[in-house]
């Protein structure tokens, strides 16, 4: 790819947690076909499924009339994922610390923490058109 090349695609997913594997398949196929290294593919796929699941469950509250948009942009230097829901928004800062001893055996509540751990940058924004936008970045040239 040239220094200014950009490649962007997107997937629209219904608000059904049972469809989460579509996000994984979409990311894996797109990244592998563009020669992204395996270690980055797995990190992106894990983070994307966490964020899409949160968008379905906490953003859209499993409302079947709402959708989640997962978009992927690849440049020479990084992969960027945007996850957009149509919900009322939620405060990621209110999630209990999954590393606290009393939370270690909880079956849920690690998604945002894992995404933050695997990605270089995770940002939450309110979508002007409604809903929440999560933007995550991962360098293709790790230090």
């Amino acid at each position, binding site marked *: 790819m040239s220094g200014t090349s950009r490649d962007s695609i997107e997937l629209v997913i219904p608000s059904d*947690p*049972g*469809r*989460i*594997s579509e996000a*994984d398949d979409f990311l894996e196929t797109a990244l592998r076909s563009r020669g992204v290294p395996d270690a980055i593919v*797995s990190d992106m*796929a*894990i983070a994307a*499924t*966490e964020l899409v*699941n949160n968008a379905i469950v906490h953003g859209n509250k499993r409302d079947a009339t709402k959708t989640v948009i997962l978009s992927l942009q690849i440049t020479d230097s990084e992969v960027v994922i945007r996850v957009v829901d149509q919900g009322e928004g939620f405060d990621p800062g209110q999630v209990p610390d*999954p*590393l606290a001893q009393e939370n*270690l*055996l*909880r*079956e*849920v*509540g*690690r*998604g945002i*923490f*894992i995404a933050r*751990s695997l990605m270089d940058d995770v940002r939450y924004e309110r979508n002007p058109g409604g809903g929440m936008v999560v933007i995550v970045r991962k360098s293709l040239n790790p230090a």
Partner: protein
Amino acid sequence: MKLSFHEKNGVVILEPRGKIMGGPDATVLHDKLHDLIAEKKLKVVIDLSEVDWMNSTGLGILISGLTTLRNNQGDLKLASVTEKIQSLLTITKLVTVFEAYDSVDEAITSFGAAARA
């Protein structure tokens, strides 16, 4: 994800293959763990050697199996954990919760050691 299983020395070995990322595939592992508990098969090893990766849903399924088995005087142990999953267990501190062994045979043997202790 595909799931096969067999039994050795009174221990059930579950062998998931692929990715444990939620959706219908992942419920297969959850349901199998809870079926085993209903059948009073309470010593379980999960061989993770063929699991490419998992997300928090997969970790939640492992925790659900672990806590339910321990609440029924059983246990769940992990074997042949891949580098990617080991990394997830480490960053989430779940490495302090699960017993993990390099091989399935070592995990099976550990049940006997615990019984003799």
